[in-house]
């Protein structure tokens, strides 16, 4: 899928860039003019060449600037290579023997200026969209007034809307700082920058508001408030996004616990270690891919997901059969025994893989970011949000729509009744615990992308996971979803005021107080039992 996307993108770029690359015939004419030896003709030739869009243009003009462009006796234009060899300027082919009596093309100041402008314009009008975008951004930052003429032409020729807008912004930035520009131009520039609405534009507008004529100042001040309001909204949206992303991490970490603790009522302190096992499974699979099939690296995560589920589920089933089974009805003892299991698993992983962090790479489709109306959204985070919601949905379906899910719910609601109906309750316990552990392992695959994969990985999530499940209401999966996202967003909104650590402390204190108020969580299951 990502490859197909890339292909489409490349095709689109090629289509868009095609018109820019038109009129190669001009290049030959330009070279004839350059070969003439008269200054005005050379200048005209440089100009023509710059607009030709010929692939060789840059090499020829750079050679001219460096004095390596020469005219041979047979009027051929040749380029002297850095190591003394010669090549044909028009075709770029290397010449077998030195051309007869080459004479370097002479330059004067007018031609030098034309060369500089042509080189700048070349990148602004380069066939490659990325190069054009970069050039426009460079002009926006440098605000070089000499680039104005080229910029105007580039804007006229630009076909990609995004780059044209960027060039327009660069032009506005130049005009705003240019003492020679009229007030009308400046106000227009202010309007354009106001639509850009980021910190750079804000700085430019502030500078404009500090100087300039009263009308410009007024326009700039108006634009500043608009931009500031927009930036405030953006930063709030960004916080919501970060919060959702943190919330989905919490959801991933807690969702397995929502089964083992929430539905089955088992305090599994080794839950974090299941997450860690999932992360290490990812690491092992990536190592295997690196050594045996480097080309398949992008496929490691899709492979790691079922593998991590299997490994963690097997470990979970073993724990349930070996230990937890003997402790049903004694929750505090279960807590201690599973804590012991978590210590053993940690040390086992430390002995096997070493105590240091292991590097888990990101496949190509997890890297990079895109811009959504001013919000920067990284693909890695986006995938994790999507993935956690998918895991949640899958779990809901598994519990609500399969016969296995029905059995789990039957056993947790009334064990003896379920047993009398012929359900093998011990088997259901084992499978349900394995399911919860397996989902924790799957969470580990995702968390390996954003956290350090070390033996302590699970420890950092255990308190958070329990808090999420308890806050959401034990035995209620939807409660877990709401609680994870709420806690994530609350955490991110507290951070700017209180700092990351204090924000977390405040949230923990809030949770402790919340549990006093509603000991069974946000969405408690209704019941009449004195002791649930």
């Amino acid at each position, binding site marked *: 899928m990502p490859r197909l996307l890339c292909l489409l993108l490349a095709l689109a770029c090629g289509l868009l860039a095609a018109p820019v690359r038109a009129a190669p015939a001009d290049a030959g004419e330009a070279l004839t003019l350059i070969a003439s030896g008269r200054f005005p003709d050379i200048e005209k030739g440089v100009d023509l060449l710059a607009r030709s869009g010929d692939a060789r243009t840059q090499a020829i003009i750079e050679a001219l600037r460096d004095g390596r462009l020469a005219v041979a006796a047979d009027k051929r234009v040749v380029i002297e290579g850095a190591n003394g060899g010669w090549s044909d300027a028009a075709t770029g082919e290397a010449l077998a023997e030195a051309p007869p009596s080459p004479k370097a093309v002479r330059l004067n100041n007018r031609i030098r200026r034309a060369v500089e402008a042509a080189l700048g314009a070349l990148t602004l009008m380069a066939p490659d969209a990325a190069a054009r975008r970069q050039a426009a951004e460079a002009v926006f930052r440098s605000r070089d007034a000499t680039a104005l003429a080229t910029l105007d032409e580039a804007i006229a020729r630009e076909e990609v809307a995004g780059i044209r807008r960027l060039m327009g912004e660069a032009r506005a930035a130049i005009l705003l700082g240019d003492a020679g520009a009229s007030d009308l131009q400046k106000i227009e520039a202010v309007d354009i920058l106001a639509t850009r609405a980021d910190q750079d534009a804000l700085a430019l507008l502030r500078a404009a508001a500090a100087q300039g004529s009263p009308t410009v100042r007024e326009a700039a001040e108006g634009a500043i408030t608009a931009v500031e309001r927009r930036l405030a909204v953006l930063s709030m949206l960004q916080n919501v996004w970060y919060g959702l992303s943190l919330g989905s991490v919490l959801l991933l970490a807690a969702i397995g616990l929502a089964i083992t603790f929430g539905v089955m009522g088992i*305090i599994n*302190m080794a839950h974090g270690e299941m997450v860690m096992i999932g992360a290490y499974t990812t690491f092992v699979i990536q190592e295997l891919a690196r050594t045996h099939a480097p080309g398949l690296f992008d496929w490691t995560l899709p492979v790691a997901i079922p593998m991590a589920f299997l490994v963690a589920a097997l470990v979970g089933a073993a724990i349930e059969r070996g*230990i937890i089974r*003997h*402790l049903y009805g004694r*929750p*505090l*003892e*279960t*807590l*201690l*025994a599973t*804590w*012991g*299991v*978590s*210590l*053993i698993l*940690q*040390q*086992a992983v*430390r*002995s096997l893989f070493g105590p240091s962090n292991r590097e888990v790479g990101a496949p190509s489709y997890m890297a990079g970011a895109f811009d959504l109306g001013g919000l920067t959204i990284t693909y890695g985070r986006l995938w994790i949000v999507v993935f956690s919601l998918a895991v949640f949905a899958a779990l809901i379906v598994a519990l609500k729509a399969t016969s296995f899910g029905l059995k789990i719910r039957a056993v947790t609601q009334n064990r003896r009744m379920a047993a009398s109906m012929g359900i093998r309750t011990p088997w259901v316990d084992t499978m349900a615990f394995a399911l919860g552990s397996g989902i924790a392992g799957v969470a580990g695959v995702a968390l390996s992308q954003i956290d350090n994969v070390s033996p302590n990985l699970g*420890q950092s999530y255990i*308190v958070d996971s*329990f*808090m999420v499940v*308890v806050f959401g209401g034990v035995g209620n999966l939807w409660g877990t979803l709401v609680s994870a996202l709420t806690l994530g967003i609350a955490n991110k909104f507290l951070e700017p005021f209180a700092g990351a*650590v*204090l924000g*977390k*402390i405040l949230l*923990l*204190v809030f*949770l*402790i*107080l919340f*549990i*006093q*108020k509603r*000991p069974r969580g946000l969405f408690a299951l209704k019941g009449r039992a*004195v*002791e649930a």
Partner: protein
Amino acid sequence: MTRRPILLAMLDGKGAIFLGVLAALAVLVPLSNLFLPETSPLHVPTYAVSLLGKYLSYALLALALDLVWGYCGILSLGHGAFFALGGYAMGMYLMRQIGPRGVYGHPVLPDFMVFLNWQELPWYWSGFDIFPFAALMVLAVPGLLAFVFGWLAFRSRVTGVYLSIITQAMTFALMLAFFRNDMGLGGNNGLTDFKDILGFSVQAQGTRLALFVATVIALALGYGVARYMVTSTYGKVLVAIRDAESRTRFLGYRVEHYKLVAFTVSAMMAGVAGALYVPQVGIINPSEFSPANSIEAVVWVAVGGRGTLVGAALGAVVVNMAKSWLTGALPELWLFALGALFIVVTLYLPKGIVGTLAEWREKRQATATAKPAGIAAEAAE
């Protein structure tokens, strides 16, 4: 003459042995350290005295935990927090005693504050240069926290694993808080470089012996207080709450009051343990608040025998001796051993060492007096 029966009722066989051992330790260890030649196999070197003192302060923490877990059914996974708070109160006193002898030589401010460019002592540091005030704080700070926390939790009937989880969240939040430099308590380095306690150098042999003896006495007193509580009528209600909380409530007892008293007293005992721990170890830092430490304390109690008091202290000493030995000899194995200990004790030794020994003895007595097997089984339960 009215006090004798109470004291006698308090002192059972286990308790007598326990107090006897403590008395012997308090007398013999200093004597051996001071008067036996270093070549003698019975000589206790000074570092070992401090090590033993450390174990005994852990034993006091375990005793405190056993009071609430063993007799009241409150599994606190945050007792390490009370221990550390007591330790910090003592650490603050010791920091103030350094005076101008710090690395930066500031007359009042501790080194880390000078380093962080603080201009004056924060308000909560005032008074800690006076020992009685610091000693009061050792009791008051953990006690107050436990009182507020317990009052909120018990009033809203947060019980069982929920209580365990929020006590864990409490110590986790405190750990995060104490890691911050802005707390004004040394950040992640904590408090260290102590010089004097009550005018005596903390490094001196005499001071170390005195601290050891003080720890033994505190442990004995702690045992006395806990034992007095659990053998009184109050203790009977406590056990009733542990075994059937709702029934006790329906019988008319204010369950939350009983729990709150036990929890607060226990937290204060843990605070004293922390305060004795700090000068003997020479440092207190936020990692003492880590949830893992608190859970480790729970396993000491479980190993020794939950609900026996003596067993808790024994478990703390045995587990920590094993830890010292294993982390030195086979550091890789320590976590395996500790993890296995958690599992084995919960699965096969639910009564711990002391509880299992008592069970055996009862069985032997039962067979010796040729009682029917059914009663023996009943007693074992």
